[in-house]
């Protein structure tokens, strides 16, 4: 049974894993497309080794799944469990961001 806390299980690839999940949020993508979108979202390049380390961990935990290969490229998509986990993690980040901003604005005032 996959665990629900993705990020805490994926260290040291927790951040890349979250990034990969975010790129898959709007539909299946293969490795190269994931790398391009990840760089677009984060502004940082995602190396091939880091990408596949994250993909392997996410797949092992049932957070993503591979679709049938198209030629030699294999697309991946979020599972239902992965989507729930991503949603929970993003909610947590949103709460963190809101509180941090409130404190920053309160301190500046």
């Amino acid at each position, binding site marked *: 049974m996959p665990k629900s806390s993705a990020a805490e299980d994926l260290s040291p*690839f927790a951040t890349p894993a979250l990034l990969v999940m975010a790129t898959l949020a709007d539909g299946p993508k*293969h*490795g*190269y497309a994931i*790398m391009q979108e990840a760089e677009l979202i984060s502004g940082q*390049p995602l*190396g*091939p*080794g*880091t990408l*596949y*380390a994250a*993909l*392997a*961990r996410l*797949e*092992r935990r049932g957070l993503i799944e591979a679709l049938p*290969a198209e*030629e*030699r*490229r*294999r697309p991946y998509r979020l599972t239902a469990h992965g989507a729930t986990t991503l949603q929970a993690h993003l909610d947590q980040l949103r709460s963190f961001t809101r509180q941090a901003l409130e404190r920053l604005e309160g301190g500046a005032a």
Partner: protein
Amino acid sequence: MSPHRLVGLYPAAWRERYGDEFHALLETRTPGRLDVIDIVWGAVDAHLFPQAPEGRFLMFTRLAGLAAIGAAAALLMGFLFFIPNINELTVPVFYGLATIGVVGIHLRQVAVRPALAWLGFLLGLLGLVSGIGFVLLTRVGVIPTDANEVGFLVGLALWIGSSALGAVMLAIRVFPTLVGLALVIGSNIAVLGLFAAGSPNAGEALDILGQVGILVYAAAWLGIGVSLLVAQPQEGVLGPAT
């Protein structure tokens, strides 16, 4: 470095699962220097923390293989440097050598047949503890040091541990039959040779027999190690992956 070589840095199970698409990715986007470092780091991670479904199995298998090869090398060293001078030092050395193999095999067995693994482990442990206890008692003077008695105990522990392990391996067909038989037969011949070496009436033929037994025993460990390192779960040599 070519994509083919970079993919080759990863473990076999990883390549089986991701190798083709990873290779295609590296062909699409030629890796730069930072990419190469990133891929090497990813390969190290894949070796240390296998994520494939059979990853735990492979990790145990690899560790067991390395331990078995270590045991073979150590046994040969023991044969070359210690056998001609059986004394107190021989006992801990040989128990150490036997322990390497026992631990290695059990790393593998625990992943496949936990119940049988524990049986073999307990039998080996019994010999190990009794031998170490004997050595300690001779050290503190409770038991007078006697090379023949020490040699006898070394042989006894090796015989119990390796025969039990060999029997377990043959029973569950984890390794090729020849390797399991070599371990059982080799250990018994080696023990006979150790007994003979400690006897005042030891003949040359028995001495040679013992040396052959030790070599066969070491060769069996080597065979186990190589089998573990080269075999893949789907090949059936190692039984079903768990």
